[in-house]
Protein backbone atom coordinates (compact mmCIF):
# COMPACT_ATOMS: atom_id res chain seq x y z
CA UNK A 1 0.00 0.00 0.00
CA UNK A 2 1.43 3.37 -1.01
CA UNK A 3 2.02 6.24 1.40
CA UNK A 4 -0.80 8.27 -0.16
CA UNK A 5 -3.28 5.45 0.15
CA UNK A 6 -2.38 5.11 3.83
CA UNK A 7 -2.93 8.86 4.23
CA UNK A 8 -6.37 8.60 2.68
CA UNK A 9 -7.22 5.67 4.97
CA UNK A 10 -6.21 7.76 7.98
CA UNK A 11 -8.38 10.66 6.83
CA UNK A 12 -11.36 8.39 6.12
CA UNK A 13 -11.23 6.49 9.40
CA UNK A 14 -10.75 9.64 11.47
CA UNK A 15 -13.62 11.37 9.64
CA UNK A 16 -15.89 8.40 10.27
CA UNK A 17 -14.90 8.17 13.94
CA UNK A 18 -14.91 11.87 14.85
CA UNK A 19 -17.80 13.11 12.73
CA UNK A 20 -19.71 9.89 13.27
CA UNK A 21 -19.55 10.63 16.97
CA UNK A 22 -20.65 14.22 16.31
CA UNK A 23 -23.58 13.08 14.15
CA UNK A 24 -24.61 10.62 16.86
CA UNK A 25 -24.50 13.35 19.51
CA UNK A 26 -26.67 15.56 17.26
CA UNK A 27 -29.15 12.72 16.89
CA UNK A 28 -29.40 12.41 20.68
CA UNK A 29 -29.89 16.17 21.00
CA UNK A 30 -32.70 16.10 18.44
CA UNK A 31 -34.31 13.12 20.17
CA UNK A 32 -34.14 14.96 23.50
CA UNK A 33 -35.58 18.13 21.93
CA UNK A 34 -32.61 20.24 23.05
CA UNK A 35 -31.68 21.81 19.71
CA UNK A 36 -32.30 25.33 21.02
CA UNK A 37 -29.88 25.06 23.92
CA UNK A 38 -27.22 22.67 22.63
CA UNK A 39 -23.80 24.32 22.20
CA UNK A 40 -22.97 22.39 19.06
CA UNK A 41 -20.35 24.85 17.84
CA UNK A 42 -18.27 24.41 21.02
CA UNK A 43 -18.50 20.63 20.67
CA UNK A 44 -17.51 20.86 17.03
CA UNK A 45 -14.45 22.99 17.74
CA UNK A 46 -13.21 20.45 20.31
CA UNK A 47 -13.74 17.57 17.88
CA UNK A 48 -11.96 19.37 15.03
CA UNK A 49 -8.97 20.03 17.31
CA UNK A 50 -8.92 16.32 18.25
CA UNK A 51 -9.15 15.42 14.56
CA UNK A 52 -6.23 17.68 13.65
CA UNK A 53 -4.03 16.34 16.48
CA UNK A 54 -4.88 12.70 15.67
CA UNK A 55 -4.17 13.34 11.97
CA UNK A 56 -0.77 14.88 12.75
CA UNK A 57 0.19 11.95 15.00
CA UNK A 58 -0.92 9.21 12.59
CA UNK A 59 0.49 10.97 9.53
CA UNK A 60 3.83 11.35 11.32
CA UNK A 61 3.90 7.63 12.06
CA UNK A 62 3.09 6.69 8.47
CA UNK A 63 5.52 9.25 7.04
CA UNK A 64 8.24 7.98 9.38
CA UNK A 65 7.72 4.46 8.03
CA UNK A 66 8.22 5.61 4.42
CA UNK A 67 10.21 8.87 4.50
CA UNK A 68 11.11 8.88 0.79
CA UNK A 69 7.53 8.48 -0.42
CA UNK A 70 6.14 10.99 2.05
CA UNK A 71 8.39 13.79 0.80
CA UNK A 72 8.04 12.95 -2.89
CA UNK A 73 5.33 14.77 -4.85
CA UNK A 74 2.28 12.77 -5.93
CA UNK A 75 2.75 11.13 -9.31
CA UNK A 76 0.33 11.60 -12.22
CA UNK A 77 -1.85 8.59 -11.38
CA UNK A 78 -2.21 9.67 -7.76
CA UNK A 79 -3.08 13.21 -8.87
CA UNK A 80 -5.66 11.87 -11.33
CA UNK A 81 -7.28 9.71 -8.64
CA UNK A 82 -7.46 12.70 -6.29
CA UNK A 83 -8.89 14.89 -9.04
CA UNK A 84 -11.65 12.45 -9.98
CA UNK A 85 -12.63 11.97 -6.34
CA UNK A 86 -12.62 15.72 -5.72
CA UNK A 87 -14.93 16.30 -8.70
CA UNK A 88 -17.61 14.11 -7.10
CA UNK A 89 -17.08 15.65 -3.66
CA UNK A 90 -17.39 19.14 -5.13
CA UNK A 91 -20.80 18.29 -6.57
CA UNK A 92 -22.00 17.01 -3.19
CA UNK A 93 -20.71 20.12 -1.44
CA UNK A 94 -22.42 22.42 -3.94
CA UNK A 95 -25.73 20.56 -3.56
CA UNK A 96 -25.44 20.87 0.22
CA UNK A 97 -24.57 24.57 0.03
CA UNK A 98 -27.38 25.36 -2.42
CA UNK A 99 -29.89 23.45 -0.31
CA UNK A 100 -28.87 25.44 2.78
CA UNK A 101 -28.98 28.68 0.77
CA UNK A 102 -32.40 27.71 -0.51
CA UNK A 103 -33.74 27.34 3.02
CA UNK A 104 -32.42 30.77 3.92
CA UNK A 105 -33.46 32.54 0.70
CA UNK A 106 -36.91 31.03 0.85
CA UNK A 107 -37.41 32.95 4.08
CA UNK A 108 -37.95 29.74 5.97
CA UNK A 109 -35.04 30.66 8.17
CA UNK A 110 -37.30 31.26 11.10
CA UNK A 111 -39.23 28.07 10.53
CA UNK A 112 -36.14 25.91 10.06
CA UNK A 113 -33.90 26.56 13.06
CA UNK A 114 -30.28 27.55 12.51
CA UNK A 115 -29.30 24.31 14.27
CA UNK A 116 -30.54 22.26 11.31
CA UNK A 117 -29.26 24.55 8.57
CA UNK A 118 -25.77 24.89 10.05
CA UNK A 119 -25.38 21.22 10.89
CA UNK A 120 -27.00 20.10 7.66
CA UNK A 121 -24.52 22.16 5.68
CA UNK A 122 -21.62 20.95 7.79
CA UNK A 123 -22.61 17.31 7.48
CA UNK A 124 -22.93 17.73 3.70
CA UNK A 125 -19.30 18.89 3.64
CA UNK A 126 -18.27 15.97 5.86
CA UNK A 127 -20.23 13.53 3.69
CA UNK A 128 -18.49 14.93 0.59
CA UNK A 129 -15.11 14.40 2.26
CA UNK A 130 -16.00 10.82 3.19
CA UNK A 131 -17.13 10.13 -0.38
CA UNK A 132 -13.94 11.72 -1.73
CA UNK A 133 -11.74 9.52 0.45
CA UNK A 134 -13.79 6.41 -0.31
CA UNK A 135 -13.54 6.96 -4.06
CA UNK A 136 -9.79 7.43 -3.77
CA UNK A 137 -9.38 4.19 -1.82
CA UNK A 138 -11.50 2.24 -4.31
CA UNK A 139 -9.46 3.64 -7.20
CA UNK A 140 -6.16 2.96 -5.43
CA UNK A 141 -7.31 -0.64 -4.86
CA UNK A 142 -8.45 -1.07 -8.46
CA UNK A 143 -5.25 0.38 -9.85
CA UNK A 144 -6.64 3.57 -11.38
Amino acid sequence: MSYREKSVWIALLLDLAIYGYYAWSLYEVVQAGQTETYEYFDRLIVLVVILVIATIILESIVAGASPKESTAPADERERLIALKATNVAYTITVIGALTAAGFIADNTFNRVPLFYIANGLFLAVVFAEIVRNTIQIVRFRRGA
Partner: protein
Amino acid sequence: MGSGDFITNDIRKLRFERGEMTQAELAAKTGVTRQTINAIEQGKYSPSLEVAFGIAAALGVPLEQVFHYRKDGA
Protein backbone atom coordinates in the same frame (compact mmCIF):
# COMPACT_ATOMS: atom_id res chain seq x y z
CA MET B 1 -10.27 5.55 -26.80
CA GLY B 2 -9.75 6.82 -23.31
CA SER B 3 -10.10 3.86 -20.98
CA GLY B 4 -6.76 2.44 -22.10
CA ASP B 5 -8.41 -0.86 -23.02
CA PHE B 6 -6.55 -1.07 -26.30
CA ILE B 7 -3.08 -0.22 -25.13
CA THR B 8 -0.97 -3.21 -24.21
CA ASN B 9 2.61 -3.30 -23.02
CA ASP B 10 5.60 -5.57 -22.59
CA ILE B 11 6.97 -3.93 -19.46
CA ARG B 12 7.03 -7.13 -17.46
CA LYS B 13 8.92 -9.05 -20.17
CA LEU B 14 11.35 -6.17 -20.70
CA ARG B 15 11.99 -5.85 -16.98
CA PHE B 16 12.96 -9.50 -16.69
CA GLU B 17 15.15 -9.28 -19.76
CA ARG B 18 17.07 -6.53 -17.98
CA GLY B 19 18.37 -8.47 -15.00
CA GLU B 20 14.96 -8.94 -13.43
CA MET B 21 14.57 -5.25 -12.78
CA THR B 22 11.96 -4.81 -10.06
CA GLN B 23 8.89 -2.60 -10.34
CA ALA B 24 10.35 -0.44 -7.58
CA GLU B 25 13.59 0.07 -9.53
CA LEU B 26 11.70 1.00 -12.69
CA ALA B 27 9.47 3.32 -10.66
CA ALA B 28 12.50 5.07 -9.17
CA LYS B 29 14.03 5.57 -12.63
CA THR B 30 10.74 6.84 -14.05
CA GLY B 31 9.73 9.09 -11.16
CA VAL B 32 6.45 7.42 -10.28
CA THR B 33 5.38 5.07 -7.49
CA ARG B 34 5.74 1.29 -7.65
CA GLN B 35 1.95 1.04 -7.52
CA THR B 36 1.68 3.18 -10.66
CA ILE B 37 4.17 0.96 -12.54
CA ASN B 38 2.12 -2.05 -11.42
CA ALA B 39 -1.12 -0.44 -12.64
CA ILE B 40 0.47 0.41 -16.01
CA GLU B 41 1.93 -3.09 -16.34
CA GLN B 42 -1.47 -4.66 -15.72
CA GLY B 43 -3.17 -2.34 -18.22
CA LYS B 44 -5.27 -0.67 -15.54
CA TYR B 45 -3.80 2.77 -16.14
CA SER B 46 -2.57 4.42 -19.33
CA PRO B 47 0.35 6.73 -18.57
CA SER B 48 1.00 10.17 -20.03
CA LEU B 49 3.44 10.48 -22.89
CA GLU B 50 6.07 11.79 -20.47
CA VAL B 51 5.86 8.72 -18.24
CA ALA B 52 5.59 6.36 -21.23
CA PHE B 53 8.79 7.79 -22.72
CA GLY B 54 10.37 7.68 -19.28
CA ILE B 55 9.61 3.97 -18.95
CA ALA B 56 10.97 3.26 -22.41
CA ALA B 57 14.15 5.20 -21.62
CA ALA B 58 14.55 3.40 -18.30
CA LEU B 59 14.22 0.07 -20.10
CA GLY B 60 16.58 1.23 -22.85
CA VAL B 61 14.23 0.59 -25.76
CA PRO B 62 12.12 2.72 -28.13
CA LEU B 63 8.57 3.55 -27.02
CA GLU B 64 6.98 1.25 -29.62
CA GLN B 65 8.74 -1.73 -28.11
CA VAL B 66 7.12 -1.08 -24.77
CA PHE B 67 3.59 0.01 -25.66
CA HIS B 68 1.34 -1.25 -28.42
CA TYR B 69 -1.87 0.34 -29.62
CA ARG B 70 -4.56 -2.03 -30.85
CA LYS B 71 -7.68 -0.68 -32.56
CA ASP B 72 -11.05 -1.99 -31.45
CA GLY B 73 -11.65 -5.39 -33.08
CA ALA B 74 -8.21 -5.51 -34.61
